[in-house]
Structures are given as structure tokens and as C-alpha cells.
């Protein structure tokens, strides 16, 4: 077993909204080993991006607030760290790439300038050395004719190329953790596959651990070793990727997998119809006491609506927060 690099313990994040306090993240526990890829899945609004921003120390405060918990990077609690220390961490030890490559790069600076900026900031490289580093990174992320393109501006590049630039920027200082927040959602399908290959390839070469945030089970299947499924700011299930795909326990996880056509186990046998999960994520200001998924769950009963199910391990590295499995295992 590899050493644990990043550990999130009992994290809780709240937002003040017009309709009251929204608990966007509640009782969140995840850990990330060196060199592994952890997938975080869920619909939009389930708190996965907020998890990423919490780790980066970029939750907008106010209206946001860290209500409790710890985020340990090699044992150092990032929630206790000073802003100056967090600036050293960001882009250097933990990097992040975003969903929207089209708008995530500054339009008025050349891409080379933007990549070099990170290297100059964290490693104090000279202008020339930083330029050299930017060039190496562009080559590493597979940008053709990097010598010329290094002086181009974001608007001169396609979305896939811009996401490669974002990755180059994020990896310029060899961070230990890369958080990829829906890195391919805005891109064409063929480009998506290229980006996945690139990330996998870079992970193998540099040993950077990746937190892959997505709503797409297909992406998880391609990238992740372990998976965390989030719903309404809480973890409902976590397990190895194979277990999640072959033996999903939580009704929500099962629903997510049914949404993806090609993941069905045996195409020759009668296929279940493609399904969607009825309903939407409830407003986080009015969650009540029960399981947040209960209103959309076909198995929900009185207990589900009244009490929050605790997360229970059902196997090595497989935990589920659902009264249904709780009763099954107890029986």
C-alpha cells in the first residue's frame, strides 16, 4: 500500500444564501495515495467542485465558510495554513485544471508567458529558464510546433489545445497532486480521449497523484483507480473502480452507471433500457434530517426519510451510506 499523500477529514463547508445556510459539503472524508488517481463523481451541485476549491483554499469567503474538519497534505493541515503558505502550495504542490479551457486562460498574455509565470513564481527561475521550462512543458503535453506556439495567445488555439496548455501550466512545477475539475466536459469526444491519455501518460511519468472530478462514469472507468460518489455534499459510496462498476451498492451509484450505455456488463444479454435518475438534487438549504437522496430513490422508506444513513464499510475499501445495504448486511 502506498503512503497517504492527502487526507480530508470531516470537512464541512457552508454558504450563506438568501434562503439560509446551505451545507454544500458535510462530513466529507477522502484520502489520496501517492501516484493514484481518485475519481469524484456526482451530478452538478453535489459539492465535488467545492471539495476541490476547499483543498486549494479557494472557497470564496464570504459567502462561503469552512465549518469544520481538516485537510492534511503530508500531515500539514492546509485549513490552518497562512495565506502566504497556501500561495506556496497552490500551483506548486497542488495544481488544478478547470472545466472551461476556453475562458480559463488570460486572453491578453501569451501562453508561454502564463506557463513561465508559474515556474518563475515557485522556483524563482530566470526569465530565460522559465521560458525553457514552458517550452519543455508544451512539448510534454503534446503541442506540435511548440517553439512557435509558445508565443501565441489563447484565442489562437482550439479548446483541446488550451486544455493542454492548462495541463502544462498545472504541471510546470511538478506538483504532487493535480486536481482536474471536469477537464474534458467542454471538449469534443475525440479530444476527450486524447486528454485522458495525456493525463494517464503524465501520471505514469511524473508520479503525480490525480483527483479527477467528473459527472461522467465513462471518464472514471478510463482514469481512476478509486472512486468517491458524492450526492448533495455527502459521500454516498466509495470503492475501487472495479467494484463500483461491477457491484454498485448505493441506488444513486446504480443510477449513475445506468446512465452510461457502454458500461453494461454483457452486451449480448438483454440490455436494460437507458435510464435517467428522476428528479434533481434538492436545495442544500432545506435538506431535512433524512437521506438526501430519499426523495428520488425508488427504494426509500420511512427510515430513509427520517434518518441520515451512516457510512458503513461492506468490504475492504468499499463503503456505502444507505439504509438498504445496512439492513442487507445486517440480515
Amino acid at each position, binding site marked *: 500500500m502506498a503512503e497517504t499523500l492527502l487526507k480530508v477529514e470531516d470537512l464541512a463547508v457552508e454558504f450563506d444564501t438568501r434562503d439560509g445556510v446551505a451545507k454544500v459539503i458535510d462530513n466529507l472524508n477522502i484520502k489520496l495515495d501517492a501516484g493514484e488517481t481518485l475519481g469524484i463523481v456526482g451530478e452538478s451541485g453535489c459539492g465535488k467542485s467545492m471539495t476541490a476549491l476547499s483543498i486549494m483554499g479557494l472557497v*470564496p469567503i464570504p459567502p462561503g465558510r469552512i465549518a469544520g474538519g481538516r485537510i492534511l497534505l503530508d500531515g500539514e493541515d492546509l485549513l490552518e495554513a497562512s495565506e502566504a503558505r497556501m500561495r506556496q502550495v497552490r500551483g506548486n504542490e497542488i495544481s488544478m485544471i478547470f472545466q472551461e479551457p476556453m475562458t480559463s486562460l488570460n486572453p491578453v498574455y501569451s501562453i508561454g508567458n502564463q506557463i513561465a509565470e508559474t515556474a518563475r513564481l515557485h522556483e524563482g527561475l530566470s526569465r530565460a529558464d522559465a521560458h525553457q521550462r514552458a517550452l519543455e512543458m508544451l512539448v510534454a503535453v503534446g503541442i506540435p510546433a511548440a517553439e512557435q506556439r509558445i508565443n501565441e495567445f489563447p484565442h489562437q488555439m482550439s479548446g483541446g489545445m488550451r486544455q493542454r496548455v492548462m495541463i502544462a501550466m498545472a504541471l510546470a512545477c511538478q506538483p504532487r497532486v493535480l486536481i482536474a475539475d471536469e477537464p474534458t466536459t467542454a471538449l469534443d469526444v475525440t479530444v476527450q480521449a486524447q486528454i485522458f491519455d495525456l493525463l494517464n501518460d503524465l501520471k505514469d511519468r511524473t508520479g503525480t497523484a490525480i483527483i479527477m472530478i467528473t459527472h461522467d462514469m465513462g471518464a472514471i472507468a478510463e482514469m481512476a483507480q478509486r472512486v468517491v460518489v458524492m450526492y448533495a455534499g455527502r459521500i454516498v459510496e466509495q470503492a475501487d473502480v472495479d467494484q463500483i462498476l461491477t457491484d454498485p451498492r448505493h441506488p444513486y451509484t446504480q443510477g449513475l452507471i445506468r446512465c452510461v450505455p457502454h458500461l453494461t456488463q454483457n452486451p449480448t444479454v438483454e440490455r436494460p433500457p437507458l435510464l435517467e435518475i428522476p428528479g434533481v438534487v434538492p436545495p442544500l438549504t432545506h435538506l431535512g434530517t433524512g437521506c438526501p437522496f430519499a426523495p428520488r430513490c425508488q427504494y426509500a422508506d420511512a427510515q430513509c426519510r427520517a434518518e441520515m444513513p451512516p457510512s458503513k464499510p461492506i468490504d475492504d475499501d468499499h463503503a456505502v451510506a444507505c439504509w438498504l445495504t445496512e439492513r442487507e448486511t445486517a440480515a
Partner: protein
Amino acid sequence: MSDAKNTTPSNGSPGDVDEIFVEHPFRQFVVMYMRNYAAVAGLFVFVLIVGAALFAPLILDLDPFEMVDAPLLRPGEGGHLLGTDNLGRDLFVAIIYGARVTMAVGGAAAGITLVIGLTIGAMAGYYRGWVDEVLMRITEFFQVLPPLLLAMVLVALFSPTLETVAIAIGVVSWTGVARLARAEFLRLREQEFVKAARSIGARDRRIIWLVIMPNALPPLIVNAALTVGIAILFEAALSFLGLSDPNVMSWGKLIGDNRDYLLDAPWTITFPGVAIFLTVLSMSLIGDGLTDAFNPKLRER
């Protein structure tokens, strides 16, 4: 407006907003306007000034040019509320009468501005192509000429009458309205209801004035309030420079007549200026209020 981006809670409770949306559109409009206290104050000042302009001659049966007392009396001296100017004219009476000219010329000039601007902007935005090209080149041409200087030249070349002043102001200030109207028309002409009107064979003129124009009105009405304010400022500047009818009292003229006594009798400059300032301010506050009233969702700023 990008100002609208805000994350803090509003002061109104969500219940209020729901309540407003089920009401009649006009009542909703009035309610939203009334919520903007500054805009209500602006409307109040505006009504007051228009009232003074309309009815003052009936109440105050005086000649603003008459020398009623010693020159340069301080405010309050000799029973003159705002004092007298360098020719011994009562400043209060002069300011009240000045409101007539300022309002009439400002209003007429704004009207001319809007007619030219709307016509050119609507045609450019609706017909596009070479019509747009030609009209936009003309617009750019007028943007190159310094507006006040051109107005000065027009008044000087032709005659210094109130009509010339109003026309000159209209001729130099329509470009902004034209650009705005063009943008609205370019946007609206692609909307479904315009296509629908075209598909049933409506004529261009009908589509422009009866189909698109009513939908383009909200931003244009807000702009009209500002246009009146700007026209008043132009009128004030021209009459301050002596480029207006010398036989008619106006605020700018009052300042121009007294400018040499600035250091000895600052009130002769200050009070007419306050009148101009308040009038234009009221127009821009009304403009803000109309913006709120037309876009209830953008209310938070």
C-alpha cells in the same frame, strides 16, 4: 449590467418579489420604480422644475430682465431670496423664468436627437448590408466632429434663435442613440416574433415601427431620459458662451452674464449652476429608476 453581479442577499425578502411578479405589468413597473428612492426624489425634483417653468409666469408676474434693485445684493438682502445679479435683476425670478427656456430647448433638442437617432439606427439595424454600412459611416463621421464646437459653429453661421439652438444640439448628439437603436434592432430582427410577422407578409415599415420598436423601447426610453439631461447641458453651455437668443433668460446665460463677478458675487454663478445640476441630476436618477423598473431582476446592485 455587469454591476448586477452580486452574491450578498438582497434587502427585500423573497416573498416581496413573488408578490410583484403576479401583479399587472404596469403596477409592477411603478412598484419597482418606487423602490428606488433616489429615482423617486429625481422625479419629484423634475416635476417641481417643470411646474415652476409652466406656472411661474402666472404666479410671479414679473420680467426677469427688469432691474429691480441694486446690483450684486447678497442672498436675502433687500427681500431677494437669492440676491441680485450684476444688473440688479432678481436671481430667483431669473432662475424660475430660465427654467422655461432650459426645459423647452432641452426637450425639443432631445426630441430631435431621438428622432434622428432612432430613424438612422432602426434603418441600419433592420436593413443591414449596404444601408447599415452607409449609415454607420455617417454616424462615425458625426462622431469625429467635436459636438459642442459644431453646435457653436452652426449657431454662429445661422441665427442665434432658440430653434437654431435646439436643431444644432439635435444634429450634434444623435450618434449615441443611433448606435443603441441599431444594436437593439440587430438583436431583435432575428427573434421569432419578427420572423413570424415577416412570414405573414407584414411590410418593412410595419415591422420596424409596430413589431420591433415596442420591444426595443425599454433601453431607448432609459436613454431618452439621459438624452434630455445631455441636451440641457448643451443648451447651458451654448447660452453660457452667449450663443443663444440674447432676449431670452436662461440659466447658462445668467452664468455667462455674471462670470466677471465670480470672485465678488459667487452666488450669481452658484445658484443658476445648482439649477442646471439638479435638473440634469433628476434626469439621470429617473433614468436609473426606469432601468430598475424595466429590469426587475437586475435590481440588486
